[in-house]
């Protein structure tokens, strides 16, 4: 599953990540696209607190793609 969180203001990136996270089955991958450093920090903190395994954080032209597995 991929979520485009670009342009969303606080706390919507985390709210949407949480909604997607709750629907995700164990072992499934979630890709999150963010375009602000604050959204990136908040989403990563949420994933860390939720026990997600962040596999990759790629940054290009101000856009960050976070790949996480539940």
């Amino acid at each position, binding site marked *: 599953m991929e979520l485009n969180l670009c*342009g*969303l203001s606080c*706390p*919507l990136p*985390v*709210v949407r990540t949480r909604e997607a996270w709750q629907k995700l089955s164990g072992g499934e991958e979630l890709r999150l696209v963010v375009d602000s450093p604050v959204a990136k*920090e908040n989403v990563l903190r949420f994933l860390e607190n939720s026990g997600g395994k962040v596999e990759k954080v790629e940054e290009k032209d101000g856009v960050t793609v976070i790949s996480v597995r539940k």
Partner: protein
Amino acid sequence: MLKRNFIVIAGVVIGLVALVLAAAGNPPNMALCAACFVRDMAGSLGLHRANTVQYMRPEIIGIVLGAFVTSLATKEFRPRGGANTAVRFLLGFLVMVGALVFLGCPIRLILRLAAGDLNAFVALLGLIAGVFVGVKLLAGGYYSGRSNPEKGGIGGLLVPAAMVIFLLLLIAKPVFNPQAGGPLFFSKEGPGSLHAPLLFSLVGGLVVGVVAQRSRLCLVGGIRDLLLLRDFHLLKGFVSIFAVVFLGNLIMGKVNFAFAGQPIAHTAHLWNFLGMFLVGLASTLAGGCPLRQLILAGEGDYDAGMYVAGLFAGAAFAHNFMLAASPKGVTVYGQIAVIAGIIVAVIIALVSREVYREG
């Protein structure tokens, strides 16, 4: 580890800045206040005629410019906007109305609490209740829109540029109209006449702007994240400001636990509660407290810039329409405005839900 706990350092630094500014001459229990100080600036610009609350507060200028310079240095300055921009103006307006009924923003609420003002405790309960309702509306699908990068970047520079102009006017103090006064007006008595020396205030504001930008400190966000995500991170900033100022006040013998007789405060409990309820609700919908919006405006977010413009407009209307409270209490107009503001904020949240499903 340091990055995660920087929010605590930021809170401590802001608490220390508040103690210094209080000692240097800022109004009692009002060393820093995003709402009261913007209100004073609106008065200084002649947008309202309450002659006891007119001063071009360098702290606010410093906060915005501190965030601006820091975001430039860290490559986080990004001119952007377009996410329900007009609604953001309205939310800023509503936040100011609520804040001026309580007589303070969330920062001043902490400063008042740390000096023993129990009215601020009632207001804190209101703030938490307002954020709680805001969180429920968020969970119910409230959508605040998507911002986009701004071509040219003029909108993102608007608030920092305005602050530079305000600072130049404050330093130069030109007189355009010898009879009527202006362009800036200054209180001769009342809270507007009480202020630390310009350099103290400006440097204090810059320091707050830098640490708040780096830490993402947000007082409403702290309560929101705890209620929504069980995440205590942002709230650590709130708690550390309180701890430092409370300790400082305790050492200086300035803690007075009481409802009555508190400086620049009233004891109308219902309206302290509801005023801050409106601040909590509207700030949650706007994505952060007034301090956070000033920081975002400094980072080039013109939606936050419009929120700041809404704060100025709200302050002007609050005083011209007699909505603002005073130590004597809350006017009937202020009471009506708070109730109407809460209704408007709920309507904004409810009508913005459908868009979420499409997005």
